[in-house]
């Protein structure tokens, strides 16, 4: 790769002093970003660092509260993405925005200013084919989007942006849904675009290996602020990790007895496919004793959901084995596992863990409709369920108008307390808690964490899956950073520090397929 002239020249696109507030959150705090023509510029940061907000501002989807954008040092104002596109800035979003029943060509011309009124598909095809030839793309224009692989869809999105005349491409987490070979192809393709065609690429990611592999310069964001601006060639990976994670994590160790119970859960070389049929969990092994907490730390989408679901029985294991109390439970159904004392608090409270149209009592029944103690001659024992719900509502401080209120009227925090209370009321021996405090306010999150600690005191083993390093380091006995479906290590809490764990969450110190 021939690095472009990195001497401070006039930036092609600059954001200066950008501040953006959302209700209760300062998403961006006086952010400066400068992008040189013909470079791949990486914006690195953890989830919630403000990367996507910044990109949405650059693309005209959001308006900054303070600060301004400059294109070739001329102040510009984007009222909508149309303005950004008119100035040659294109964006490829993290989630695909394609019509899957339409052909590639139809998707590329869809929404193009020239296609208003009559559609000239034949003319458009010639233009798009010329574009493909110029950039060396091989995209089947006649194929329907649903027939394409995720990697091909990404190229359609890129082609769509180029067809609209984009010379600056913003890619938001472009490798998130791709297989390793697809990642390789994408990165090589981006390098060609930059080197041979003078396109400028702004790459937004939390994956360090990708930054190291292709970018010329990198800007690191943390909690809405720019914390570093470096040439990639000069940047040591460890330094980038430190910037990304920060050193200001406060440790609040909980005082818990050190002696642990007998081994409860043993997981050997567990692998599983995700919904797209890709191997998302790739050979995870660990064991967990009664009263222990294993904190799985990682950025969402690295196999955590698959791990939780395989353990709960909701997703088949592709290979490997799960033992509970020495008994092989790998092939048992969710119901059999509930009966054996596995409790699962999924990340998707509304979609999976509750039924919006049901009352609180009926939602409580979701974990009790199979329990003989709550069934009398085939009838659900409503009085017992009502009493149980009342107990959960009081114990876990669920604020609800009544037990017969619909779950959809509960706030996220109250719904989570109800779900957690319901699962814990079964006295599970193994509790799988996936993002248990995500989106909760400080008070509710603290309550949930305290509840988890209490459960371990009563002998439950807890598998805590979280993105919040602080939470993981506070609650866990063992910390397992997860990246692309593998544990980087399993570190005792006393030896775990934010930098090591953070580096592993970003893919350092792990064998990375496809990039290196």
């Amino acid at each position, binding site marked *: 790769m021939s690095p472009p002239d990195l001497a401070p020249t006039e930036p092609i696109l600059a954001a200066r002093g950008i501040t953006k507030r959302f209700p209760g959150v300062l998403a961006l705090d006086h952010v400066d970003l400068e992008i040189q023509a013909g470079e791949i510029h990486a914006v690195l940061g953890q989830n919630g660092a403000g990367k996507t907000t910044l990109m949405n501002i650059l693309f005209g989807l959001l308006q900054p509260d303070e600060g301004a954008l400059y294109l070739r040092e001329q102040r510009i104002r984007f009222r909508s993405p149309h303005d950004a596109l008119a100035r040659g800035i294109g964006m490829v979003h993290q989630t695909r925005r394609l019509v899957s029943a339409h052909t590639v060509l139809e998707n590329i011309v869809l929404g193009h200013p020239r296609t208003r009124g009559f559609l000239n598909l034949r003319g458009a095809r010639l233009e798009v084919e010329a574009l493909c030839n110029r950039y060396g793309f091989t995209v089947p224009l006649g194929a329907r989007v649903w027939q394409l692989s995720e990697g091909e869809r990404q190229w359609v999105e890129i082609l769509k942006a180029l067809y609209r005349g984009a010379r600056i491409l913003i890619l938001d987490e472009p490798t998130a849904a791709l297989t390793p070979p697809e990642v390789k192809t994408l990165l090589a393709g981006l390098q060609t675009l930059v080197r041979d065609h003078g396109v400028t690429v702004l790459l937004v990611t939390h994956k360090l290996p990708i930054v190291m592999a292709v970018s010329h310069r990198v800007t690191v964001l943390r909690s809405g602020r720019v914390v570093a601006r470096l040439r990639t060639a000069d940047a040591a990976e460890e330094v980038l990790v430190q910037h990304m994670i920060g050193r200001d994590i406060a440790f609040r160790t909980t005082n818990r007895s050190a002696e642990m119970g007998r081994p409860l859960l043993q997981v050997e070389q567990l692998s599983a496919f995700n919904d797209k049929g890709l191997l998302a969990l790739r050979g995870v092994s660990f064991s967990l004793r009664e009263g222990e907490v294993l904190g799985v730390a990682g950025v969402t989408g690295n196999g955590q959901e698959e791990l939780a679901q395989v353990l709960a029985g909701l997703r088949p294991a592709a290979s490997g084995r799960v033992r509970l109390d020495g008994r092989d439970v790998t092939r048992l159904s969710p119901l059999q596992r509930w009966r054996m004392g596995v409790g*699962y608090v*999924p990340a998707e409270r509304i979609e999976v*863990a509750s*039924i*919006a149209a049901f009352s609180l009592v009926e939602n409580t*029944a*979701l974990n009790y*409709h199979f329990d003989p103690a709550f069934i009398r001659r085939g009838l*659900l024992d*409503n009085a017992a369920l009502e009493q149980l719900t009342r107990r959960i509502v009081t114990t876990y401080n669920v604020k609800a108008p009544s037990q017969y209120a619909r779950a959809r009227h509960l706030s996220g925090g109250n719904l989570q307390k109800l779900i957690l209370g319901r699962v814990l009321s079964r006295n599970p021996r193994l509790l799988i808690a996936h993002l248990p405090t995500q989106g909760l306010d400080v008070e509710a999150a603290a309550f949930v964490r305290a509840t988890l600690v209490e459960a371990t005191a009563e002998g439950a083993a807890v598998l805590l899956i979280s993105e919040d390093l602080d939470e993981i380091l506070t609650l866990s006995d063992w910390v397992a950073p997860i990246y692309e479906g593998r544990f980087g290590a399993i570190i005792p809490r006393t030896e775990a520090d934010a930098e090591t764990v953070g580096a592993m969450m970003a893919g350092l110190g792990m064998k990375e397929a496809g990039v290196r």
Partner: protein
Amino acid sequence: MRLGRYELTLEPRPAPPAIFTALTAVVAILLALALSSFLFLSSHTRLIDAYRAVFSYAFFNPHGVLATVHRSIYLLFCTYAFLVPFRAGLWNIGLPGQVYAGGLAAFAVPFVLRAHDPQTLPLPPGLLIVLMIAAAAAAGAATGGFAGVLRAKLQVNEILVTMMLNSILFWLVAYMIKEGGPFMSATGEGESFGLPSSLHAPLLLGVPVTAALALGVAVLLDLLFAKTALGYRIRAFGENPAAARYGGIIPVALSLLVFLLGGAFAALAGYHYFAAVPGVYKIPGNYGYYGDLGFYGIIAALIARGSSLGAVPIVVLFAGLSVGARFAQGELRLPFGVDYALLGLLMMTFVASHVLYHFRFAWRRIPSEALQSVPTELPEG
């Protein structure tokens, strides 16, 4: 929508009172009847005579009342056949096919046991009748279960499968009763053989026992969904399949179960009309008419919002109006198809009343300041 200084909006109605539910139904019926006046205009009778003919035959004439009762029983079973899978979030559009399967199986019992000759009954008639009903239910369950298995195991759309099964079973019946078919009647008129009188369903108060069965099931189904663990599982699956699976419910088993039940109910409708209604006791050449009529079970279940007891009055009204309108059509030389048109109108007004039930029109006066033109310039900075 803006009209001068006023604005017309559709707003969600907060929890409507119970009386309102009944009231909207009554208004919907009256509106349908008012709209049907247009159908009667072309005839040379007074409107009032047309309505009188429809209602007096359907609900007061002894022949008409019986016809209404039989049709109600038939439609009720069809309603349950749709309702049970519907509570699990699945669409059973296979009512006609399952009705035919029930009819065929019911007639297969005397055919196989050589009991269509009254002199050679191999078993007591009571037992034979129970066998016929059981065979019908089993055949309907198998037909429904076929769609259920495909849905649960292979995610094949149940609507497509049940629709295709309708066609397959329609032609299977045709093969069985038309030229040379095994069930063909001796006179060979495209009908099945008639049942010997000993195999006619016993009558209670002048109506077949299937009436008691249909009303009993109405009570049981509402109880099932309100009180039992199984009913809870079906409802949970219907509201949120992912949550149901999380809660330990097995989607394959549940989808299969509701389709087995639904198919069995539709088959009972088939048994009732072909094997239990006095004067029929055979699969008639116009069996396709009854199959199509089964679709009104879908409408009744939807209007009753999944309540089997709630569906009873709706079904009786549908049955009565279709029977009465068919009578009035012949009597007063009304245009052909007036019975279907009347049901269609009723359907539309019911559906419209549902929107009004959940929403209301609201007239609001627009505050005068909002009408003034807003300055388009943004302030400095």
